[in-house]
């Protein structure tokens, strides 16, 4: 009996998420949010169906009722998020919120399957983060002085990373976290946002050569501190974000090429000087030659990805637990194994859909500061997705970063939620800019009409 449910649900779950993903891209057929209402409603329904069917399978496979209760709590949280957001911010972007909830629910499903305790912990962090996050669009909108805190951002970022370097506990070859009152923080996650704010505020008004050099120095310090902490994945993200933001702020292709060349040079140097970089490159080029040590994680990840086929082994029917740190760095492989390659491709496409929406919002913002922030956060987000998925599938060397919103990890999920809500704030600003423009146009038209009328009256009186 369970077998029928597992087998049938495999195809249904894939169908539901494929339809959801399709809607993610159909959204872009319409320029304005008011025409997209039907799509969002269908997405909400499909989200529910994916989430529900996955937990139905989990309950059948485990026979444990606590999963059912847990599911109800998740469903309440996600439903409340979608509804409350719409009530509080009627001008908000619903694709971003829907995708956020979809990715969170995929995360809940796979974490519940991998470790019930960790899933519960993650659920609480997500709940708190969403409550905090709901306030963010309001503050982004109101706090005009955010533009002028350039050097505060730089200082906070470097100090936070510096403290980790000095105090941080060594976790698996890289010093990336510290604990306060039992809660472990990974500051490089939060500093990503602060860093984008720094670059946006430094570059939005003036992007002459001097500004580029000054920001290069600050960005360089960030990257070097991260390299010293051996957190190469984050260092790479900061570097790419810097190059991309300078390119977009100046519109100058030379900076992009210089950045690319500099990056290649740095990569070669890093390969020469750090043995752990050499080990990772070796593990990427031929993981099977060092399957006992450096290649173990990546080969286990490849085993997982290739075992599921298009529709997956079914939840609880694979062995994703054999990948070390599967909940954080290799959650994508676990998804691919149990829910299938097709499902995991949909997850990637949902991430890409978020990115395209971020870029769209960025382009349509008038204000240079906000425009750069939307762009910077978009690049930060998508590049991190690229690093984690590419690393787990041997497309690129492994860097050990999380899949935003899906992976286990408090700092990661909080940071990503904050990013998404900042984008919402920017979207609301964009909507108001648009409304102001319309009002302004109307005002101009009105004064012109009045002038014509006055002239007519003047003629008549003559």
């Amino acid at each position: 009996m369970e077998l029928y449910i597992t087998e049938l649900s495999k195809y249904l779950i894939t169908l539901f998420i494929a339809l959801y993903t399709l809607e993610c891209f159909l959204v872009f057929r319409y320029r304005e949010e008011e025409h997209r209402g039907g799509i969002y409603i269908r997405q909400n329904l499909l989200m529910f169906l994916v989430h529900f069917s996955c937990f139905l399978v989990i309950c059948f496979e485990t026979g444990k009722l606590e999963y059912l209760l847990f599911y109800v709590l998740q469903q309440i949280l996600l439903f409340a998020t979608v509804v409350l957001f719409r009530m509080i911010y009627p001008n908000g972007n619903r694709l971003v919120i829907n995708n956020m909830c979809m990715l969170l629910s995929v995360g809940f499903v796979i974490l519940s399957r991998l470790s019930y305790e960790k899933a519960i912990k993650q659920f609480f962090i997500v709940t708190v983060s969403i409550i905090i996050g709901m306030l963010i669009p309001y503050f982004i909108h109101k706090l005009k002085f955010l533009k002028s805190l350039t050097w505060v951002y730089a200082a906070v970022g470097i100090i936070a990373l510096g403290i980790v370097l000095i105090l941080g506990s060594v976790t698996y070859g890289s010093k990336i976290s510290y604990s306060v009152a039992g809660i472990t923080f990974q500051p490089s996650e939060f500093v990503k946002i602060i860093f984008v704010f720094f670059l946006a505020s430094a570059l939005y008004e003036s992007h002459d050569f001097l500004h580029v050099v000054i920001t290069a120095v600050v960005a360089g310090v960030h990257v070097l501190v991260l390299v010293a902490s051996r957190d190469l994945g984050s260092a790479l993200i900061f570097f790419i974000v810097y190059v991309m933001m300078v390119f977009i702020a100046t519109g100058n292709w030379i900076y992009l090429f210089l950045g690319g060349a500099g990056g290649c040079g740095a990569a070669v140097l890093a390969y020469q000087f750090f043995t752990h970089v050499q080990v990772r490159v070796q593990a990427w080029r031929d993981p099977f030659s060092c399957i006992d040590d450096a290649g173990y994680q990546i080969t286990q990840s490849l085993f997982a990805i290739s075992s599921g086929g298009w529709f997956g082994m079914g939840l609880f029917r694979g062995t994703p637990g054999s990948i070390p740190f599967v909940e954080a760095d290799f959650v994508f492989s676990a998804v691919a194994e149990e829910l299938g390659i097709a499902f995991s491709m949909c997850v990637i496409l949902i991430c890409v859909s978020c990115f395209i929406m971020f870029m769209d919002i960025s382009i349509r913002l008038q204000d240079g500061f906000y425009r750069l922030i939307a762009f910077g956060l978009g690049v930060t987000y998508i590049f991190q997705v690229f690093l984690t998925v590419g690393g787990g599938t041997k497309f690129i060397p492994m860097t050990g970063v999380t899949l935003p919103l899906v992976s286990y990890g408090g700092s990661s999920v909080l940071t990503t939620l904050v990013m998404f809500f900042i984008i919402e704030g920017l979207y609301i600003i964009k909507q108001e800019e648009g409304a102001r423009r319309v009002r302004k146009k109307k005002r101009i038209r009105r004064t012109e009409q009045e002038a014509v009328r006055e002239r007519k009256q003047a003629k008549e009186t003559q």
Partner: protein
Amino acid sequence: MAVTYLFVALFLGMMGYTCHYAVTHRQEMINNSYNGRQELLISQNTRGTIYAAGGQALAQTQTDADGKETRNYPYENLFAHVVGYASNGKFGIESSSNYYLINSNAKLADKVASDVAGAKYPGDSVVTTLDVGIQEVAYQSLGIYKGAIIVSEPSTGKIIAMVSKPDFNPNEIDAIWDDLIKDKESSVLLNRVTQGLYPPGSTFKIVTALEYIRENPETYNQYTYQCNGKFSLGEDSINCYHGSVHGYEDFSKSFAKSCNSSFANIGVSLDRAKFGATLNDLLFNQELQVSFAYNQSKLAIDGSTSDSDVIQASIGQGTTQITPLHVNMITSAIANKGVLMKPYLVDYVKNNENAIVKQFHPDTYKKLMSEEEAAALNGLMQEVVTSGTGTKLSGLSYTAAGKTGSAEYNSDKSQSHAWFTGFAPAENPEVCVTVIIEGAGSGGDFAVPIAKRIFNEYFGL
């Protein structure tokens, strides 16, 4: 916007790569011993059966009342190497088809029924190309000798029989494993057909003859030689087998009588760079595209090879090493108008209800030589049977063609491995047989009669 397009392109590339990798590497990944999913499949599915082409079970899993499984080999030693064993690291078809055997494509309803009964799902079965009757004849003919026999179909590449001796009983593999491992002398576990490296002896004259024909396509038939039982060049000299003196001979007679002196004479006349290229064409010193464990044949000739080495190589002695499989592949290419078909052992995979899960089709491996070259060699090999060293195969209802060999393998010239490789019927070859008997003596006396028994069995005589 450029950045958006850049990332979207990057992601499309990554997705394409991931899908392709996952789908094409599935089997390889499951077979990796570091992959715990193999254990998962083994715990879910009963290992499938390996069948002969005629439907006889060659390896099957039996489950007793307590659910304890044993792998049973009804023919015991007969298929020991080719079917192999499923424990102690796995070997043979048990290893190469492991992926199919541990998977189950049983119908959903059957799986549910198994769930209800508390049993494992029935695993998929593998139907091989092996023929029990031919395998038995080949096995019996080799008797107590060490050696190897392979029988194949030149037009498809199907392997019909594969025997290696000394052998073992795979039913007892766990009990005898330690002794077999310790015994370095007779290497019982080695599949001599695919892994045994032997000096090819005079069977290699096929290759020398091919190279001579290639270099002298118009005039090779005008070749003449006066054999006085010995060929000397500088300080190097070789003798004909057991001191025979062949007298006046042309190209065909040199081949049919397997005259060492004449072939040494031919060998030194060859362009060594071209000879080397022909060896590469014939898959020497290369990895083979086969799904079973094998060793690479070794012989390299280039412009710098000395006269002495070329003389030895031309008659299949010296440092040359070849597997019976490789000899059989070259022979079947001659039989198949120059085209080598990829040798294979598994015909198809089926589920518990005999529905085909995967069908393997004959596949061209490579064209080893032109049709004319193949026809010329075919003619030479027929002459071996009618008037040369293989006359024990003459006067039958079918015409056979082949080449014998008596390969010396140590300083004692009286001892040699007996070789025969050939096919029948010569005009339209259906079956190709390669035999080696270690230390038996001359190929014509010992290997040819075995080939004859196999041909007779194949043609139902």
